């Protein structure tokens, strides 16, 4: 027993343990290399379908932005980024406060593997590229639809400015989600918010300025997609959110 203890305490034992660990690692790599060798030796009889992930954001049925892994699998992406609200107004039309404009938003799986998707929507006000923190995002009324059924609201991640939605269904190759928004309008309350200033040099003269005059409302949509295999771990790893996937239906924990 003493001999064994002495042996375990010796540098030789430590070295042996290390060599054993390194050996285990090497063998696991060799396994992969052997698998690859087998695969290559059989290419003359097999067709290989490469797995490429891709996702597209649609606005009123038109592709706005997409990012697809290239089918050649050479490590490059086929991507383009468009602009939302670009075709909201007719030519020469002025934006009308209170009017509902069509703003149908959804997502298409433009890759070759099934996927789960989530959408983060941001609403805020800007003036000359400066974000206006004091103006209310709630006055930008993007009407969300299918929430609570196809789309799940992540309340823990949502704020007045940000809304996070998870698509509860598995999105197959080439499939399109149901809409998550259908119209947008600016609340008429923006026409009631004013600030009054005394005019310098003019006694008893007050200048009234609309708080929202010249402001731009901004809508931003970010779509994330993740593979369906091992989905719960993939979502946790990629998005940092615990979900349950049961019979291809995703729910938030």
């Amino acid at each position, binding site marked *: 027993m003493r001999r064994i203890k002495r042996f375990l305490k010796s540098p030789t034992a430590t070295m042996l343990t290390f060599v054993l660990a390194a050996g285990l690692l090497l063998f696991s790599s060799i396994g992969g290399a052997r698998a690859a060798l087998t695969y290559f030796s059989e290419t003359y009889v097999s067709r290989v379908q490469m797995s490429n992930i891709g996702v*597209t954001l649609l606005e009123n049925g038109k592709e706005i932005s997409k990012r*697809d892994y290239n089918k050649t699998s050479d490590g490059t992406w086929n991507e383009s980024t468009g602009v939302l609200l670009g075709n909201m107004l007719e030519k020469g039309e002025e934006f009308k406060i209170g009017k509902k404009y069509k703003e149908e938003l959804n997502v298409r799986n433009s890759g070759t593997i099934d996927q789960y998707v989530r959408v983060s929507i941001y609403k805020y006000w800007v003036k000359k590229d400066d974000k206006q923190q004091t103006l209310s995002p709630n006055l930008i009324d993007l009407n969300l639809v299918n929430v609570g059924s196809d789309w799940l609201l992540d309340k823990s991640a949502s704020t007045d400015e940000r809304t996070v939605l998870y698509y509860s269904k598995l999105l197959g190759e080439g499939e399109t989600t149901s809409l998550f928004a259908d119209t947008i309008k600016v609340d008429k309350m923006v026409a009631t918010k004013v600030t009054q200033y005394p005019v310098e040099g003019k006694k008893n003269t007050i200048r009234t300025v609309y708080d929202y005059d010249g402001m731009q409302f901004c809508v931003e949509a970010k779509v994330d997609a993740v593979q369906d295999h091992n989905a719960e771990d993939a979502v946790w790893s990629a998005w940092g959110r615990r979900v349950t996937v049961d019979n291809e239906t995703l729910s938030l924990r």
Partner: protein
Amino acid sequence: MKKKSIYLAVFAVVLVLAGSAGSAWAYFTTYVEAAGTQTISLGDETTVEEEFNSWTKHIVITSDEDSEPVYVRARAYCGSQYELVYTASEKWTPDSDGYYYYSDILNAGEKTSEFIVKIENVPEDVTDASEFNVAVIYETTPVLYDEDGNPYADWNGKLDVTVEKGGNN
């Protein structure tokens, strides 16, 4: 020697962790984004031109070139000894509140048709118009739209006013 053993053990652990890190990064993911903006324009500026002759006031309201569209209403006040007669106009419509409402939206740079108020029962010995105190007031309100894009005026709307002490240019 003891330290060397510890270093080797830590190195082995790092190797094992590095091996598993590969699988953690192996998930297929992608993302896409888009943004867009629209500008809101608010604020209106109108001026009134008033012409007085033959005991009649001719009033025209003009919208500034940079003004947003507005609705207009007007009325006149005077002492009880005189009578005011408004000349009917197809675009100025009286309402029970005493105001006359201009039917058209007044867009930037546009003028209303004349709002005419005649003062009657003027004593013959009075010749100086400045002795009369007939005041015409007019009000504007921004054009609002319902969800279908139909314009309307909200004359009872209240402003949510913030008062600043400092000046503003």
